[in-house]
């Protein structure tokens, strides 16, 4: 991971990923019986993926309904859970020590690229209470714990009294600070009139609640600048089922695939890879998942490829725009009456 991030041209990167993902398919087929049963039916005779899009993928919601792991139960070091947005069964992602370490290492390499080598004083737009149960992280808690090592002297904004906030800001008046939070938490709670000029805001968690209030990414950035003076705002996209592999937004608003992961935008009718620029269903791939078969996941998000080695920011590889979630469908039928 010492090599420079976002430096590999897409063709070379895709060849490397295809090879590595092929190896993961065979690894998980051998180690995870339910995965083998699925792959042997949906991709009978699979031997090697020529393209990343040829790697068999799983619907991400399968991690909500099924226990999928490629390690024995007694080697599970940590179970990540994420409830998603619908309040149903949470996803369960089983990590052993090596996978957990790989996630941390990879995330660090990516974030250092964006934040620089120095750890900045970190303002977290949330409360410590979301961290409570360390064995069963919530998505918000996991996000905060994942990001915390990239800052120092952490202040949880929603736990702090006004004079504590003032004191903290005074202390760090000289240098830049790192502000982190979930998108809607930042929008709702980052106060107007605090001077954070020169700072960096990193946020994530989706636009759903902001889209409801008709807030565009541009309006979000303008508002943050007006409230705090922060010019550098990085949204990032990623999912609990591929923790460590994150897609960070550059100065030009594009979410860049990291070195260890990529996206395949799929046409929702043919399910082939959609042409560049066309909207489709987002599949995410990552070379990290060894302890569970989460290396190729079809999400319920819509997106499109906005750059391939040609983003004006200069970063190589693919960059995407996420266009929101696929709306839940309502089927008809003899469904329940009392609950509605």
């Amino acid at each position: 991971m010492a090599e420079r991030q976002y430096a590999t041209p897409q063709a070379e990167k895709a060849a490397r990923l295809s090879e590595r993902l092929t190896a993961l398919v065979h690894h998980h087929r051998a180690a995870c019986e339910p995965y083998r049963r699925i792959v042997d039916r949906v991709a009978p005779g699979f031997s090697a993926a020529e393209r990343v899009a040829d790697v068999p993928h799983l619907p991400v919601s399968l991690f909500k309904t099924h226990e999928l792991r490629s390690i024995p139960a007694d080697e599970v070091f940590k179970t990540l859970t994420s409830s998603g947005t619908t309040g149903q069964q949470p996803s369960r992602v089983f990590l052993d020590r090596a996978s957990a370490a790989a996630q941390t290492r990879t995330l660090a390499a990516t974030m250092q690229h964006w934040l620089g080598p120095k750890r900045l004083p970190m303002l977290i737009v949330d409360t410590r209470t979301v961290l409570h149960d360390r064995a069963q992280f919530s998505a918000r808690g996991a996000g905060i714990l994942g990001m915390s090592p990239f800052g120092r002297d952490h202040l949880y904004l929603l736990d702090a009294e006004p004079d504590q906030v003032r004191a903290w800001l005074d202390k760090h008046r000289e240098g830049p600070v790192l502000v982190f939070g979930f998108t809607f938490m930042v929008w709702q709670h980052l106060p107007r009139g605090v001077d954070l000029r020169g700072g960096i805001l990193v946020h994530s968690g989706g636009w759903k609640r902001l889209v409801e209030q008709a807030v565009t990414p541009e309006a979000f950035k303008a508002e943050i600048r007006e409230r705090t003076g922060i010019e550098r705002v990085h949204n990032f996209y990623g999912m609990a089922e591929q923790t460590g592999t994150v897609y960070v937004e550059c100065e030009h608003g594009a979410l860049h695939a990291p070195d260890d992961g990529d996206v395949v935008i799929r046409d929702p009718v043919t399910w082939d890879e959609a042409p560049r620029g066309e909207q489709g269903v987002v599949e995410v791939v990552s070379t990290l998942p060894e302890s569970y078969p989460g290396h190729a996941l079809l999400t319920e998000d819509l997106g499109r490829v906005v750059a391939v080695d040609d983003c004006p920011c200069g970063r190589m590889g693919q960059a995407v725009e996420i266009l929101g979630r696929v709306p839940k469908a309502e089927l008809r039928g003899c469904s329940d009456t009392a609950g509605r």
Partner: protein
Amino acid sequence: MLVETLVPARGEAELEEIADRLAARPSAPPFAPELIDFCHALSRALFTDPRARRHPELVPLASFLRRASVTALADEFASDAVAGVAQVPRGLAFHVPPSSVDTMFVYSLAVSLLVGNRNVVRLSQRRSETTEVLIDALNAVAAEHPQAGGGLAVVSYGHELEPSALLSRAADVRVIWGGDATVETIRALPLAPHATELLFGDRFSLAALDASTPEEDLARRLFNDAYWFDQMGCSSPRLVVGVGDGARERLERLFDELHAEVVQRGYELELGATLAKRAYAYGALADRPVRAYRELGNELTVLELETLEGFDRTHPGAGLFYAVALDSLDELADHVVRKDQTMTVSGFDGETLGRFVRAVNGRGIDRIVPFGEALTFGRYWDGYDLLGELTRRVHAP
């Protein structure tokens, strides 16, 4: 308590007053001319509503309500008569229909009305355009036929239980359609000591065909049975059983033809339903004895099972079919469970089917009908004879 009223007029009213008014009215004699006229007028109103063209599921309902069809039902009712026994209405019927098979409330209502009962129907506040068309038709017809219309009320409220509790106490018979959860919730509300109830919980339906006697047109009929309510109707087939030599090949051909039918009819699923179906199907691959997996476009997925052993009947709708090849119907009989409702059939003779019903002997399957008639409503439903259940028998020698 104040509730929204939909029939006999849209507005608001005190539910107590509605219940009192219905309780005070006399019942009509079963199949009285004004009741048949009412149904026929409703049929005409549906056939002539320009909006109805967009809702093909209204066509079989309108046909069911036609004078000829209703008179045939009256004749059946008359010929069932036993000497020395008079069949009379139960009184006030309280219907809780499913929220999303939009036409169900009118079938339930019409049969009850025809045998002379007064009726109150609870609809959910989330209503489709089909339901609105039906409400408008009922209002127009009730205004022209005050005698039959006066014994009818359709109300709407949310999932609060108080209104249902009030109507349950006032009812002589309660009819609960919809999922198991609804049945459980409403069933807990007390009825008057003399009152009875009809319960229609979650069901599973299947199709069975004899591979050696191929029938024409099966794919078109299977399409109508399965796709009309997005395969979410209780009688929509979700498992297709091929019986006899060459069953696997026959099934494979049938699904190819069904796919062609889906394409030709222009049936399309929303993306969310496609994703939910695929997630379900992949889960089934992980858990179940699936021999082969086929995706024929987004709208048709086939999971061929090696065996029905342990088959648990969960299903996402949206055009997913389990398929299995068996040597005989006897083999299928071993796997029938209480939840199984309708079996659409092709190619079996009456004797074979009779033997099958006797072999199952009430463990499940309440209807056996030809392909294409899975959704055709009838007096015999879920093991009930609705005409019988909605009346009382008076011994009068």
